[in-house]
């Protein structure tokens, strides 16, 4: 066969598959009504998902994901000629039905994760149903790109953040050793002379830039249609760049501090450094993409060269360069898609009613719960909100208040809470003073032991106490013992999480109330108009240079329980407008 006899591209000449004609629906806006109803059923849960994502600083880039996905989809469907509906409409219908069932389950479980997954599955079913396999293939990158707005389940992103901090801190230590810069690692804290603590926080660990860079790399991959090996290497390389850049950031801060006495860890300089490093990272990702192009771009042609010879190859390359223009995209009617099936519309109407009712009750949170009342009340707490002397429980000795302090305000999403108020107490039989603090605001369970572990404390005991109260309710507080290998100190922590109404919250998600109990409680509270999603944390932390004895622990426990009681009373009084 000569070169001239090469077969043309099959897509151009192959006759279109025989399809049944799509069902016609009315020409007015009513023809979009079923699709809108289905979309409306998803809307409250999608908004809730957006609110949840926005509450995580490392996911605040998600609007860009939607825009990017839209851009990918728009350019993917240009000049595609006539689009025909999918052949297996029953399969699409089944998938769509499953998607609506997923939505119902997500509304019952109040799980925005399940809702977004159901929505994406339904969307894929719709794409196939509407435009067949060809449209699905064209829109697959855009659809896959949308998955970036789905956080991993089981809070894996939090675990990942923790891991990233630890890795960044470890690598920083290695690099500082290479440069011969004196430093001491305490968890994810780097201490450099003259005893400055550089905490590898979310900002420094680059968790924000990590997700943004991965999104950026994935957009490159989809936009330029990179092959799979190229894509995998680019994504892996981007992860590597982010880790290296985070490490470089902390090293730069430490070097500037030690060698030049310049503080790059705070203020405008820190922000500028972060921005410069982010731009540098984007540049490095693009550069890596080019490098991979250099390595792989013609490798596939190269293999073809071996198979077919150089002349054949050049012909194929020319053919590939020519854009296949199938003419203006002509869309089929939507009447044949699964969203127009009557049972589906019926279910969607029911789900609409249920979801909007739940949203009206406040169970589906279409806005972040306001903490204004709680913060206003807690901000009024002062030195005398706790008594100057607290009985130690033995009748003879007492804890004496030493001082009170308000910590500088932190960012809204700081893991330690935005606000903190401290009281210090001292007991004659205890060497060191103990710190009592009230941290707020938190929006779900906050595991304080993790914060201490990240600061270099090794946990040796972690126990959740659940004593029964006289009124039959259950009290919950967590007790933890720590050891700090760097300073040789023992640490003792007690903490509880209280809701806006001053009620002690259940422990960690693993040992929380059962699912049904939780939903019923929340429904009851919603009907009583008592939103309880905002929380504040009360903690006691004591240190010692000896093993903390059971007797001392009893003293601390007594103090903590009394402290919690006093503070809750002061808080509730302040909330009702009285003096705390």
């Amino acid at each position, binding site marked *: 066969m000569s070169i001239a006899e090469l077969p043309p591209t099959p897509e151009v000449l192959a006759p279109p598959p025989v399809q049944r004609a799509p069902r016609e629906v009315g020409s007015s806006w009513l023809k979009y009504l079923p699709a809108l109803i289905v979309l409306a059923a998803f809307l409250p849960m999608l908004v809730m998902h957006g609110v949840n994502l926005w509450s995580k600083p490392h996911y605040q880039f998600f609007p860009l994901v939607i825009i990017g996905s839209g851009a990918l989809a728009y350019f993917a469907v240009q000049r595609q000629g006539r689009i025909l509906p999918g052949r297996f409409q029953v399969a699409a219908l089944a998938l769509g039905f499953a998607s609506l069932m997923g939505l119902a389950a997500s509304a019952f479980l109040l799980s925005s994760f399940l809702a977004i997954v159901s929505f994406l599955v339904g969307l894929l079913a719709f794409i196939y149903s509407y435009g067949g396999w060809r449209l699905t293939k064209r829109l697959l990158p855009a659809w896959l790109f949308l998955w970036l707005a789905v956080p991993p389940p089981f809070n894996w992103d939090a675990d990942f953040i923790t891991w990233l901090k630890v890795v960044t801190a470890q690598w920083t230590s290695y690099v500082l050793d*290479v440069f011969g810069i004196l430093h001491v690692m305490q968890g994810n804290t780097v201490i450099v002379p003259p005893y400055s603590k550089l905490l590898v926080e979310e900002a420094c660990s680059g968790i924000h830039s990590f997700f943004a860079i991965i999104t950026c790399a994935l957009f490159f991959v989809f936009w330029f249609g990179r092959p799979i090996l190229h894509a995998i290497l680019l994504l892996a390389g981007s992860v590597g760049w982010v880790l290296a850049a985070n490490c470089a950031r902390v090293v730069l801060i430490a070097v500037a501090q030690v060698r030049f006495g310049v503080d790059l860890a705070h203020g405008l300089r820190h922000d500028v450094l972060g921005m410069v490093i982010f731009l540098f990272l984007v540049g490095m990702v693009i*550069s890596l993409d080019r490098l991979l192009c250099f390595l792989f*771009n013609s490798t596939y042609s190269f293999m073809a060269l071996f198979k077919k010879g150089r002349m054949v190859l050049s012909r194929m390359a020319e053919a590939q360069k020519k854009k296949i223009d199938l003419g203006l995209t002509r869309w089929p009617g939507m009447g044949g898609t699964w969203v127009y099936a009557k049972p589906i519309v019926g279910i969607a109407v029911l789900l609409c009613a249920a979801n909007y009712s739940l949203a009206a009750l406040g169970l589906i949170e279409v806005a972040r719960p306001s903490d204004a009342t709680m913060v206003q009340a807690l901000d009024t707490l002062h030195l005398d909100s706790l008594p100057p002397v607290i009985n130690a429980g033995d009748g003879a000795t007492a804890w004496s208040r030493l001082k009170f302090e308000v910590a500088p305000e932190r960012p809204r999403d700081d893991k330690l809470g935005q606000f903190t108020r401290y009281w210090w107490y001292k007991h004659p039989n205890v060497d060191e003073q103990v710190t009592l603090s009230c941290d707020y605001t938190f929006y779900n369970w906050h595991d304080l032991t993790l914060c201490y572990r990240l600061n270099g404390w090794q946990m040796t005991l972690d126990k959740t106490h659940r004593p029964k109260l006289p009124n039959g309710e259950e009290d919950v507080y967590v007790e933890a013992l720590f050891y700090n290998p760097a300073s040789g100190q023992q640490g003792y922590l007690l903490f509880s999480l209280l809701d806006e109404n001053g009620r002690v919250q259940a422990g960690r998600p693993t040992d929380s109330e059962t699912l049904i109990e939780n939903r019923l409680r929340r429904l009851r509270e919603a009907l009583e108009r008592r939103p309880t999603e905002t929380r504040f944390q009360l903690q006691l932390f004591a240190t010692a240079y000896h093993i903390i004895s059971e007797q001392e622990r009893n003293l601390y426990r007594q103090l903590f329980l009394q402290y919690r009681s006093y503070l809750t009373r002061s808080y509730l009084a302040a909330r009702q407008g009285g003096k705390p």
Partner: protein
Amino acid sequence: MTLPPRHHKHRRGWFAPIGRFFDRISYSWWRFRQRVRRVFDFRWLTTRLTLFGHYFMSGFRYPFYIIGWLLRQAWSMIAAWWQIRNFRFLIQGLPALLGIIFISVVAVYTALRSSEGLQELYQRQALDARLSGVKQKEQLCYERLLQLHYSTDPRRLETQYGLARVSMEMGNRQRATFLLAELANPDTDQGFPLAHIESAWAIWHNPQRRAKELDLMERHLRRALSKQPDSPEANSLMGIMLANTYGPSGTLRHDEAIPFLLKSKQTDINARITLATIFKDRGDEQRAELYARPVLDYLLKLSAANIDEITYPLDLTTCYLKLNEFEKAIETAEKAYRNKKSELFRAMLSNCYVAWYRWLDKMPRNALRERQKLDVLLQSLDWDQTNVEALSYFVNFMKPGGGFANEREDAHKVLLALRGNNPYLHLWLGQKLFQENKFEEARQEWDMAYKLFPDSPIIANNFAWILTHGSPAKQNLPNSGVAPDLGRAEAIINQVIARTPKEHPFRFQFHGTRGTIYLRLGQLDKAREDLVFASQGPNAVNDQVLHQQLIELYRRLGLNNRAEAHRRILEDIYRRNNRETQGQPAETK
């Protein structure tokens, strides 16, 4: 080549089997000989080896042929690949390539670098920081070294000791104690010798050490000496400790001390002086002179050579005191005082007289010696009127009863004359009068003391205390008592609390006084705050007066349970002390 024997001969007859048997044997023997011979047949051997070599090499080189072919193919593929590369991409990807190379180099360097070099680096930095006095950096160096050392690294102990030392120097006493306790536990392991010596020093410098602690000190030093038997510090301290402690027989352990002191006599002045003291006690003046003389000469020379230096005369005086040569000690100190006019020597002179008094006190009593003791004490007070030790000896010496009453009366007159402008004498007299329940006179004395030295927190505290209580009316004299002046007392004690630092050792007592004032004024909340604070003081558990105040406070507040708890504590104290409580002020007052 020998031919093989005919082993297949056709044998016939009845003896044929026997013949075949021997034929077989001869053939086997021939085969055996042939094989043995072949081993030594060089030609056959080389032929076989050559053949074997050929076979081997043929098999061996084929894989290389294949590898070579594969490499050629690969190279041609790479060459072809390289020819169709787009170098624009390479230029654009150059930053990424350089980044990858840099990260790889750093990673390989980190992986291959041993921690020894790092440890050496930080050790050196720690030393530099120590020499330049940058303690925080030194602390960081040791903390980093502790992270780098393996758990069984012998250098870990030294690093930990360094960290303990610098923590102590930076004021983090608790951490230092914790680290030293790990390093110097005489019951568990050998530990680190310097840490043992440090712990021993800490015990030795504690003026309230008991026999149990001295026993612990000895164990620490024995641990240190088991690792460093020639350590001058350990030997010297051990010798000094033994020379000053009593053995089971009730005598000083001089015999045990001498070997340790002899080991350290070359480097340690104190060891030589202690040796001289021991021999002087034994009456061996010659040997005492032998050990003391070089030290005294050395210090005399140093004193003469460094006229402006005050430590050498002080050391010399101390040496004379240890040798009980009080006149020489006083002469040296007086001379130094005349030359340098330092107040330090006044205190030293006062202490010399006190030491002399102690020595005289051990002697049998007679009138002449009592007079001499009084003279010595007065001399001591003459040099330093605030010498608490001299004052307390004076108080004891002046106690009524016994002989020498006339002398004491004279001395009392001298004391009254002396007290004119000495606030401490007024304080002492006030205390004495207070104990004799002469409240009005005590108040006058303390008033005088307060006027003379209003900045002394202890004097002010005592004055505020007596102002709080006033003095009861004497019998038959209804208007003779003095009413409490709570307003003035409050003003004085508030001033004391405002001026004294929080670390002041009597801070708790000051709050106790103020709490009492508030209690008298009826300001119960304030009183509770102060008294509870006072109850956290180190010796508050045994303070009867404080517990009485707390009982009264809690009763007035209606907290009977707490009042009852304090009452039980008070009863316990009474039981322990086996005496009734009295309306006496707290310990400092």
